[in-house]
């Protein structure tokens, strides 16, 4: 009985007696969710264009953030460093297309997937060689990102909103909206979907596969840069940041690998779900649920919608 009470009643009693903490948990979940959505977006863009799961997305986040900090450390003003980092991410996209993807056109997806492992290990080694393994502090002030918090008194307590989290949520929303419009309303967006369906068919109607791949890898690089700045501002920038890419996996399972809105909704569900789960039900199992709770949510969804919430249902003739 005691266990049933702790599972089904106590958390809701806690929500009722300390509503400020519930609001705080929801807020933390939403911020986390938006950031997960940003990472997931990087995966989605490349998956849509090539049908490949880009294993290198996590290290791209670290690489972009370290490049920005590294350039600034050389005395380059923050916004010039930001522009140069964008140029570096373009160069990376171009190199990936030229050196890795182009020779692999029409190869099975698994080959391309394995190639992204190669990109990952190259970027880890190259990044450590150039920037070292020391943690770096994100140049938040130089980029005019806010510091501190707003403590809002409400519901008999207070809710603390970190200004950087608010900025992260706003910037992530804008980024997602712009990319959604770009890829759904423009010619490039349609070309991208065509490439995702069939490389050969896309080539036959005159779509430049090379161009599309450079564009999506560049877009994924930009998303990685924004993600790196935001996550870096919340903690610091080190190679540990690469691990957070794993948090995007349940988001992708939930939202679908090909849907930009799916990445956002999936991110929010996972973010809020794992925070609520850890805060209210975590103590029942000794805590630390946030490392696996997201996967449980994703698995439950998978049972009912294998293609994810917004994923395209694949119907194959047999």
């Amino acid at each position, binding site marked *: 009985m005691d266990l049933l009470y702790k599972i089904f009643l106590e958390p809701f009693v806690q929500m009722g007696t300390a509503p400020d903490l519930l609001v*705080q948990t929801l807020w*933390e979940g939403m911020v*986390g969710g938006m950031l997960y959505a940003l990472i997931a977006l990087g995966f989605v863009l490349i998956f849509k264009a090539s049908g490949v799961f880009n294993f290198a997305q996590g290290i791209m986040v670290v690489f972009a953030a370290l490049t920005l900090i590294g350039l600034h450390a050389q005395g380059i003003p923050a916004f010039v460093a930001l522009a140069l980092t964008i140029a570096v991410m373009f160069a990376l996209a171009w190199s990936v297309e030229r050196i890795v993807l182009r020779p692999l056109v029409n190869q099975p997806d698994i080959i391309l997937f394995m190639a992204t492992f190669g990109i990952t290990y190259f970027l880890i080694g190259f990044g450590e060689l150039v920037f070292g393994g020391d*943690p770096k502090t994100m140049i938040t002030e130089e980029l005019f990102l806010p510091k501190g918090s707003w403590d809002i008194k409400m519901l008999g307590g207070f809710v*603390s909103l970190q200004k950087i989290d608010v900025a992260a949520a706003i910037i992530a929303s804008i980024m997602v909206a712009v990319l959604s419009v770009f890829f759904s309303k423009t010619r490039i967006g349609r070309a991208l979907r065509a490439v995702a369906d069939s490389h050969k068919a896309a080539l036959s109607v005159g779509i430049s596969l090379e161009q599309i791949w450079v564009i999506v890898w560049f877009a994924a690089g930009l998303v990685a840069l924004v993600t790196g700045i935001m996550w870096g501002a919340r903690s610091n920038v080190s190679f*540990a940041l690469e*691990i957070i890419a794993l948090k995007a996996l349940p988001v992708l399972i939930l939202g679908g690998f090909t849907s930009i809105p799916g990445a956002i909704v999936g991110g929010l569900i996972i973010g809020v779900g794992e925070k609520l789960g*850890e805060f209210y039900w975590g103590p029942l199992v000794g805590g630390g649920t946030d490392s696996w709770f997201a996967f449980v949510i994703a698995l439950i969804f998978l049972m009912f919608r294998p293609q994810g919430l917004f994923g395209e249902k694949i119907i194959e003739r047999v």
Partner: protein
Amino acid sequence: MNVRHLVFGVACGAMLGVTPLATTAVAQDSIYVPLLTYRTGPFANSGIPIANGMHDYLAMLNERDGGIGGVKLNIEECETGYDTKKGVECYESIKGKNPTVINPYSTGITLQLIPKAAVDKIPILSMAYGLSASAIGEKFPWIFNPPATYWDGLSMIFRYIGGKEGGLDRLRGKTVGFIFLESGYGREPIPLLEQFAKDYGFNVKLYSVAGKEMQDQSAQWLAVRRDRPAWMIMWGWGAMNPTAVKRAAETNYPMDKFIGIWWSGSEDDARPAGPGGKGYLTLNLHGVGANYPAIHDIVKHVVGKGKSQVDKSKVGENLYNRGVYNSVLSAEAIRNAQKITGKKVVNGADVRRGLETLNISEARWKELGLPEFAAPITAVSCADHNGHHAAYMQQWDGTKWVKVSDWIVPMKDKVRPLLEAAATDYVTKNTGWPKRSEACDKQS
């Protein structure tokens, strides 16, 4: 077959034949000290300064003194990435090269190497980490973990808390939070924490941080805000530490009630929190700063000559000095082994004896060029592979660590019986665990 191929084949054969001879020649002329380090991966921020400190002290002995007892040290790093699997691979790759002592620098790797050490006759030095119970020399003759175990560390933290509270009995009915990295390391002190909770009547709240959550921790600190623990204790590592200090500050948790173990006290752990990190406390085992003659020698002979990977401004930082301390223990054990055996080139079995007779008095610390650097190491023996030495509390003042307590001795009366029980339990669970056959030296 033409003559060219024949000549090429003979040359290759000759090279293959000569190479082992050359290796043996090197091995006979030097003392091999492998260092399992991690300069890459998610824990590199903690691993790099330690690796630099460990390497630079040994390199300084080579440059300044020509090694130890006139024998050069052959220092070789093997990158583990703080990954247990890679660490074991490193061990397997170096165990045939006559290593004198293995420094795993990871509790996970240490736990894997413990059963191998007795078989391969290679001593493991897990300095203030690893399996606390391996302090029992009777059960673990090849494992050493001076100067203090994690359980000693926890008991020292509670001594400090008791001092601030006006007695540990004042904790009755209060809550003590424990935030830890979800790993063998993080979970190591929990049995003693639960024992203390029973003894002193406080509640324990555990906040586990998985590797993937190291840079987030928002749910954990939200729970801290809900539970309002009177004290928070941290067993963190790598990116977990700076994030925890930042989150604690954001949660407005009183920083002078937040205490980390000695592995959570790097400058880079406290610095990123900015002014919010002021007041954060951690245990420390040794002095911080570069103002020691031995460290001046490191700068002169190693760093200044470009033979180190360290940035000069980081020499003397806490974890750099931790690495130096680790290498002092290795070097003193080698020196002891030379003294006991009368041999110049010692092996693992000799250094095991050297570790069992380790004695670094206050005067010896001074001789080493590290006056008052650490508490004297006087209690390591055949029976006690740890010694349960003292540590002190340091506090972050916003820019640097400041010593805020005298040396705190661990609660040996509480810790030792629990260690003995844990050692017996370990041996019972590992069927066929070998009985100690190694004799004890007189000095121990």
